[in-house]
């Protein structure tokens, strides 16, 4: 127990050095490096990038590149930002998916070649059910079911089929999406939606947002530095279904549609962004899927607008459309709102289209991002929102640091009063413990939250426990007349099983907390768990090393403790 051969000393020094190297980069702050604080007023990505460049250069000037350079990730509660938990509604994904196969269903019956159709009337879709009524069931039923079965798609990478086929009254065929398929659809949509969310919120790919799946039908968005949750919610709550439709602006037709609530077959009444209504053809000429890029631009009057480019095929189609319909009105419709309804004055080649309207620059940016990112397979429902402003985050960091420093000082003083010089060794290993803990957190890329800071402080209080258990035992052994060396030996031997059991139980508690907790609480669990490991190491190895060195050099008759 009391032997410290050279290789052990080297090993201990290695761990302590590694911890220190991992923990040190956290000191690199603006003040420490002598850099002007960043002007927080400027949100321009170029300014931010230039600042980061400057910071990196200052660091590199005296911190060699081959050394670890990870800093603690601060949680949203410390650096400020928006946390959003969103759910994908499986029924809505199913409904939308069923919508997209309507054409296939129609084709199934068209293929039969009987123009009058085997359906008495167009089939009806209500939600995630689609009902087909046959007019000559005894002749058509088996064939129809067989054909429907052949177009039943499987979902994503799974073998799950989209719909179940049920026949009722021998003449109604009902396609319905079972729950298993809905869940598979939501899981399949999750990845796509995460990508769309990223492109909408962060079109330039510069910010540090994090988008993570939770379960099969939920998505978590964390946007550090963002202070306005409403803007993010607005951007994400749009379905983003963009279509180009030919429009009918005849006042009398619109008025009659508004009064009677009925339109001509194939037409639809939609709201216009600048107010009023417009009639559009139900069947779109082009859709958002035909768009390659979209970005904010300015119109002739220098007002913010959104410009986008169509892909080659769509550009040709658009040219033909505008050539054919000169003088007519076409409408660009986003989520059932007509954004713009210009008159076609001449054929438009090249596939460049502009939406003008009363946008602010920010609105135009957001709209461009929504259009370019594409349509969400289903709407997102917001379940939980938490926002922390930068002021509160800063205050929390200050309060946490203050509490930590005072905590360390109080515990340190107390240990010195209780155990004298040996207590001082324990304080030394306590400091080593904190350095190792910070080093481990930085090296593992763990996220530090405010409860995490509380976890560190709690670790400081509890870390001395292992030392205390040993010291108490050494005191007892000394009282029964043993020499310092044998007392120390016996102390460490007897204390081990108690310390192991005691720390395993706390570790169990921390692990469960990690598994169930979210955000800040998870941060607490991480610091608590790592703190347990580092405090057992420092108490058993570092304190003992200090004490043994003291015994060897000073050769005291008795350990004063």
């Amino acid at each position: 127990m009391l032997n410290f051969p050279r290789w052990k000393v080297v090993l201990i020094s290695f761990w302590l050095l590694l911890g220190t190297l991992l923990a040190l980069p956290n000191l690199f702050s603006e003040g420490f490096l002598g850099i002007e604080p960043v002007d927080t007023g400027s949100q321009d990505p170029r300014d931010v990038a230039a600042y980061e460049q400057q910071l990196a250069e200052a660091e590199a000037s005296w911190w060699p590149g081959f050394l670890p350079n990870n800093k603690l990730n601060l949680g949203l509660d410390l650096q400020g930002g928006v946390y959003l938990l969103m759910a994908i509604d499986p029924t809505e994904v199913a409904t939308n998916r069923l919508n997209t196969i309507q054409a296939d269903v129609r084709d199934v019956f068209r293929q039969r070649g009987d123009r009058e159709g085997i359906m008495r009337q167009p089939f009806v879709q209500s939600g995630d059910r689609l009902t087909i009524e046959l007019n000559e069931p005894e002749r058509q039923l088996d064939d129809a079911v067989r054909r429907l079965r052949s177009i039943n798609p499987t979902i994503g990478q799974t073998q799950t089929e989209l719909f179940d086929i049920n026949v009722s009254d021998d003449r109604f065929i009902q396609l319905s999406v079972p729950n298993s398929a809905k869940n598979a659809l939501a899981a399949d949509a999750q990845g796509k939606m995460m990508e769309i969310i990223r492109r909408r919120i962060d079109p330039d790919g510069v910010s540090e947002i994090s988008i993570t799946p939770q379960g099969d039908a939920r998505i978590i968005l964390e946007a550090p530095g963002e202070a306005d949750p409403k803007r993010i919610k607005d951007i994400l709550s749009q379905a983003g279904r963009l279509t180009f439709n030919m429009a009918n602006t005849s006042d009398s037709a619109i008025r009659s549609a508004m009064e009677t609530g009925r339109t001509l077959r194939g037409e639809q009444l939609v709201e216009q962004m600048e107010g009023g209504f417009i009639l559009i053809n139900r069947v779109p000429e082009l859709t958002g899927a035909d768009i390659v890029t979209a970005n904010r631009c300015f119109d002739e009057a220098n007002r913010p607008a959104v410009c986008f480019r169509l892909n080659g095929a769509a550009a040709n189609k658009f040219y033909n459309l505008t050539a054919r319909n000169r003088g007519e009105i076409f409408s660009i419709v986003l989520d059932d709102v007509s954004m713009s309804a210009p008159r076609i004055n001449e054929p438009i080649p090249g596939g460049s289209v502009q939406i003008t309207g009363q946008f602010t620059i920010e609105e135009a940016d957001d709209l461009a991002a929504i259009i370019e990112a594409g349509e969400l397979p289903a709407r997102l429902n917001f379940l939980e929102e938490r926002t922390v402003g930068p002021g509160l985050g800063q205050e929390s960091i200050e309060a946490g640091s203050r509490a930590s420093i005072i905590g360390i000082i109080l515990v340190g003083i107390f240990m010195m009063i209780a155990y004298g010089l040996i207590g001082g060794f324990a304080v030394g290993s306590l400091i080593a413990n904190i350095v190792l803990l910070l080093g481990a957190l930085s090296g593992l890329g763990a996220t530090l939250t405010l409860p995490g800071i509380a976890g560190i402080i709690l670790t400081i209080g509890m870390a001395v426990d292992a030392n205390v258990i040993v010291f108490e035992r050494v005191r007892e052994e000394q009282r029964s007349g043993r020499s310092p060396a044998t007392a120390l030996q016996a102390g460490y031997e007897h204390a081990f099983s108690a310390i192991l059991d005691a720390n395993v139980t706390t570790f169990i508690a921390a692990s469960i907390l990690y598994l169930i907790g979210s955000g800040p609480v998870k941060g607490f669990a991480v610091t608590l768990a790592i703190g347990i490991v580092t405090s057992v190491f420092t108490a058993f190895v570092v304190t003992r090393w200090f004490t043994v060195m003291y015994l060897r050099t000073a050769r005291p008759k008795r350990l004063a403790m």
Partner: protein
Amino acid sequence: MLLRLWPENTKVKFMSFRMVALVASVVALVGSAIMLSTRGLNLGIDFAGGSVIEIVQPEGTTADDVRAATAGMVSGEVNINSARGTGANAVDLAVIRFKTQIPREGEDAESAQQNANNRVRAALTEAFPLETYPDFAIRSSAAVGPKVSAELFRSGVTALGVALLLMTIYITLRFQWQYALGAVSALFHDVFITMGVFALTGFEFNLATIAALLTIVGYSMNDTVIVFDRVREEMRKYKKLEASQVVDLAINATMSRTLLTSTTTLLALLSIFIFGGDVLRGMSFALIFGVIVGTYSSIFVASTVLLMLPSLDRGDKPKREVEGFQGVG
């Protein structure tokens, strides 16, 4: 002379007070049950759903101005409290709370909560324009819908249950089942009474409180294990002594350590409670109370239960899985 929190070589007969302690614990447990059933826990939005928005109270305005700005924006009562930030540049704050919303037309339960949050934020920004009130800021806002709050509550309760179960298993493996039952009774005791105190004081009960309770479970178990480890050791050493005398020996021997560790932990926790700011106050309160109850329970509750159970196997030879500390370090 160095500090002693507990004199050396004491022979206090702790276990002769065990009936007194038992009565005290039962009274505290019954009291907690009454508190929990009559007053109930002041559930935060994590578990009850609802919204909390914290703003900087602009200079020259009062909580009444905030009340006026938010009037009619939400269903049910809007609760506004004044507070003060921490630190050198502390500012006056107003904390606005409202409960789970009744959906308006076209809303479901989830969007109702989020929309109400948006409305209140917008109303506040409008009522305190930056030109007139440059110090106004929304410091934080949170809106938790009914679905998530129900899930968080379930997972919190599950976590506590799973923690207790795993620890019972661990202690049964390392000791004997009597020890496990004693230790877990102490844990249950600590958690239940801490919850009772939360009901009594009206401190907000939220996710951080669950984290605190789990930590208390770990800490109290830690304390109990130290005493039990010693009980086991002395049981084998003094086979002729009565069990209660052996327990007394063990408690006396570990008392100094128990008090020292509790003191350092409490010092650290008090530092969080006093200097750590509002956000950590509820959590550190739970921890402080839990450490005190946990220390008490590891001395009186765990051992009392242990002595009430059928006789322990006192073994011929020490049966330790881990012997000493060779091979490491």
